[in-house]
């Protein structure tokens, strides 16, 4: 199982970059999340990022 990103609800708080810097970055223009390597794997860091995300932008993939 991996995770998906919903940029429509992202508010650019940057919490995911703090929790999983190897996986998430922020677009320098609007601050919204961009996955560093394309996909978002399941890992303890990513799960922490999903928990810390204020806007529900990191969701388990169906």
């Amino acid at each position, binding site marked *: 199982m991996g995770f998906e990103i919903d940029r429509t609800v992202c508010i650019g708080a940057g919490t995911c970059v703090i*929790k999983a810097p190897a996986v998430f970055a922020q677009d320098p223009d609007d601050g919204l999340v961009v996955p560093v390597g394309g996909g978002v794997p399941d890992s303890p860091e990513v799960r*922490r990022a999903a*928990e810390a995300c204020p806007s529900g932008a990191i969701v388990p993939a169906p």
Partner: protein
Amino acid sequence: MPESLPAPAPLSTARPRGCPFDPPAELGALRDRHPLSRMSYPDGHVGWLVTGHALARAVAADRRFSSRQELMRLPTPRNGVPAGPLPPAPPGMFVSHDAPEHTRYRRLLAGRFTVRRMRALTERVEQITAERLDAMEGEGPGVDLVVAFAQPVPALMICELLGVPSGDHGHFQRLVSSTNDQNASLEEVGAAMAELGGFLHGLVLAKRASPTDDLLGELVGEDLTDEELTNIAVLLLGAGLDTTANMIALGAFALFTAPEQIAALSEGPEAVDRAVEELLRYLTIAHTGVRTALEDVELGGHLIRAGDSVTISALAADRDPAKFTDPDVLDLRRDATGHLALGHGAHQCLGQQLARVELRVALPALFERFPTLRPAVPADEVAVREDSDIHGVYSLPVTWDEV
């Protein structure tokens, strides 16, 4: 069957005697039995109070609960504020707007407060911190940590970032903290806001005439009216002045009461990051928030009706044993992920990455420069901001051994 709840009660605000960092005892007791309970508001409204972590998070994340000021009721009586409805927040004061207005302002600003951009300020924060520590050393031993260190470091940084002349940051600081003071009269708050707004309006006009290389200078290039820009400036300056400063001072005070923890600040960058998150959680200085239901919402086995106000005790939630083990213990080595100290949902703190940079520079540097730093008065004589929306200390006399 919804469980029956205790009769509605006003929000308890008095901290337990001798425990200036802990939530009011009544809130802890409620949380453990009724994490969602009825609350009576100063205007006579009977609404709700959330003290449990999971429910607090759920309310803050749910867009059916509004942040609009004209729908909100004050959770505690405030000197001179009439019991009637509050006026809507003006354009640009987006902490009190919902989508889509909120989203528009937030999108405009988020790119300017990213982790990367705020971390790029680290060296500058280090310089400002070192200068203040030098000044303390010259002046002491024996200074008020609030005035000598906790206030100027974030103040100089936010002023520089926004492009606000910092010469008189002490004066701004007093204006902003009076707007957070529940004992300040309506006239005092109005006068403070008017002075701050008037000053920043003048600054916005000056930047329109000749744009400068700073945040406000950049924002004059965006599609914003003078009124919007002025209110954004008031919000950012206010939030930047009266939050991190209280975290630094209250953080130092908390560390004095748990001196065995201070070593964690010298255990490398990751340990410091963890320590900062734990201090945020443990102190949760922005302790109380309010939302209003826009429609009927079922929550925790109860029906919250459209129009009901919901007060969120972020402080009680961040001490929820269902979420954090031994929640009343300050443990700088724990993983405090999920705390609500910076809020949750669409309004979670815009300036959080700046606050993190400031805290992780300022606190370790303070204890590194003065390894014998200690309070100069007994803990129970420290003047705590009991009646403020943002918790902290009014002053913190400290001393150290000269080498």
